[in-house]
Each structure stands twice: as C-alpha cells, then as structure tokens.
C-alpha cells in the first residue's frame, strides 16, 4: 500500500509539473519521466538512509 501510494503520488505530481513547466510535448514527456523516477528514487534513498536510525 505504501509503495502504491508513493507511485501514484509521483505519477500524478510529475504529470502536472511537466505540463505546467514545459511547453513542447517532447520536453514534457522527458520531464515527466525524469521527475517520476526522481520522486521514487529519492524517496527510496531517503528511506534506506533513515533505516539504520529506526
């Protein structure tokens, strides 16, 4: 459920950010992909960094 929530959140937010910040459809697509994986990757990285202190 946690991963589903994070993935859904990343998908929706990266879609809106791409449409709002870029004009060209190709740029929008690339930005959405990058933002989506950045959301997921950074969240997973921070999660693993916090793991030893939990």
């Amino acid at each position, binding site marked *: *459920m946690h991963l589903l*929530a994070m993935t*859904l*959140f990343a*998908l*929706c*937010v990266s*879609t*809106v950010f791409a*449409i*709002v910040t870029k*004009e060209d459809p190709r740029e929008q697509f690339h930005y959405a992909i990058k933002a989506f994986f950045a959301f997921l990757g950074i969240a997973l990285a921070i999660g693993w960094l916090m793991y030893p202190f939990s």
Partner: protein
Amino acid sequence: MTDALTPDPPADSLAASTPSDPLVASAPLPEVKTWSPQLALRAVLACIAAAAIPGAGHAVLGRWIRAALLCTAILGMFLAGLFLFGGRFYTFNPEEPLSIFPVIANAGLGGLYALCVFLHAGFDARPEVPTYEYGNAFLLVAGLLNYLVVLDAFDIAVGRKK
C-alpha cells in the same frame, strides 16, 4: 582622448558579432499581447473553468490533451485520497489560526471542494483506515496542484505560454 585613439569597429563586424551573442541569439522576444475585453474575458473564463473542474480551463482554451491529462491526474489524486486512502478535508479551527493553511490548500480543488462541502462528504475523520494520513496528503497536494493549473490556464489565455 582615448575615444579618439580607439578606432571604431567596422560596421560589418558589428553586424556579424551581434547574432553570434548566445544570449541574444537564444532568447526569443516575448510575444506582447495588448489587453482587450475579449482577452480579459477569455482569461477569466479559463480561470473559472479551471477552478471549477481540474483541466477544464485548458479545455476551454482548446488544449484537449493537456486538459485530459490534468483532469486525470488531479481527479485521480482527489478520488484516491478520499476513497482509496480514507483522507479527509481540513476544517478551520479559530483556536489554531495556522489551520487556515491546509484549508486553503484543500480549497484549491475548487468545484470538487465546493461539491464536498455541499454534500458534507470527506469531512469526517476515519481513524480506522490506517492510510488516512496519505489520503490527507493526497487531498492537500491535489488542491495545490490545481492552483498551479489555474495559473497555467491564465498564462495560456493571455499568451505568455503556448
């Protein structure tokens, strides 16, 4: 005195150097639209539509694909936050003035928020749902994203963006 000693650059060298300036060459001049009643009406209509239904402002302006994507993303966050994760909308508590900020964020959903206020849906806490905090976050972010979408529709309507 130095001006007199320094030779003027030839005219053709000036003409050749200006376009090669990367700042000048890469920065297109912004299209300036003069305000007219039609333009103002178009902008107001787009903003009202975007605030009423996510993505409707872009649909009014003829950006159908963007409108569909924005509507799917924001409506998806709203529905997931409310029904899948069991979130709720925040209410203003006068004893805690800072509670106005999440209310403002929720209110960004515009028409959807007004519909929920009218039906009094989504205002009751559901602590039995373990993911209710995710739902709250989804509802907050959906409202904030819709503010961005309204501003984007305004920019398109007045010609600042294609």
